[in-house]
């Protein structure tokens, strides 16, 4: 087959090839980090200097600008991992398990932040740091699932075998995501019902929504940046393991 006869790689194949993925996503990390930083600074300016206190909660409403984005990411990251788990089990996509592994510690960190900020918001508004209600308990379970997944990845030397086990575990754990989302509708709870992501639109005024959306996009882009960086690191780590094995066998690199 001559060079001219060689079929061009589709975008799907380019995405599936770790080396190609590294080369065409590497230039994205710098600009993503830059836009994230600007959005975060604008969001903080809105949060502290250009948004009103709530008529009921007062200034504690400002905790919402870090609580809602981290709570959103705790569920979004898990949903992304569940899609990657399908990619591993159904399509055997080479980057699906890389994506799944890279996302788990990030999801765990955002879930811990959501629980912490929720606790800081709960004390002045509800009078307690913690309540074993549906939303908080299911979010705590999500944190334990994330930590279990991180531990599971570390328990296997064979990362391909680990990927299949983790993918099944991730898909089973995905049942917790709709429970978190609808817990405030299903059970009597201290946590307020959804006020942003609703079928009939947000119920809060634009002066509170603007900083919330800026912070929402800042945190989501931060996750995208860290996810890409972590995927690059994981691809290189697997290359490193291969090289170390070859070196140990005495092969030339």
């Amino acid at each position: 087959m001559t060079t001219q006869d060689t079929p061009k790689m589709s975008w799907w194949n380019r995405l599936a090839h770790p080396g190609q993925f590294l080369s065409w996503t590497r230039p994205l990390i710098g600009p993503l980090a830059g836009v994230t930083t600007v959005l975060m600074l604008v969001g903080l300016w809105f949060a502290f200097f250009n948004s009103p206190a709530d008529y009921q909660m007062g200034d504690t409403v400002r905790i919402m600008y870090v609580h809602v984005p981290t709570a959103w990411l705790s569920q979004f990251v898990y949903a992304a991992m569940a899609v990657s788990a399908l990619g591993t089990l159904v399509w055997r996509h080479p980057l699906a398990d890389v994506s799944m592994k890279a996302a788990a510690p990030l999801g765990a960190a955002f879930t811990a932040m959501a629980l912490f900020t929720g606790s800081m918001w709960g004390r002045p508004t509800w009078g307690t740091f913690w309540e074993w209600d549906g939303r908080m308990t299911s979010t705590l379970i999500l944190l334990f699932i994330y930590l279990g997944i991180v531990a599971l990845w570390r328990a296997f030397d064979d990362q391909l075998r680990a990927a299949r086990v983790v993918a099944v575990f991730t898909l089973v754990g995905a049942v917790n995501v709709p429970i978190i989302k609808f817990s405030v509708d299903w059970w009597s709870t201290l946590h307020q019902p959804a006020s942003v992501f609703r079928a009939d639109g947000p119920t809060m005024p634009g002066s509170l929504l603007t900083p919330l959306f800026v912070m929402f996009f800042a945190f989501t882009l931060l996750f995208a940046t860290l996810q890409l960086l972590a995927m690059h690191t994981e691809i290189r780590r697997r290359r490193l393991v291969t090289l170390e094995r070859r070196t140990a066998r005495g092969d030339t690199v």
Partner: protein
Amino acid sequence: MIGLGEHAEFIIAAYAGVFIGLGLLIGWSVYDSRRVRARLEALGDKRG
């Protein structure tokens, strides 16, 4: 800077907790990336 009212300590603690957490997350991600790249280069890998 605006006044944060009677519950300022909770607001400050929430933001401090999140940004310390983000700092650790970013720092760990960059450190891990550099460590793996340095080990690859030490083994003669030139692909970056």
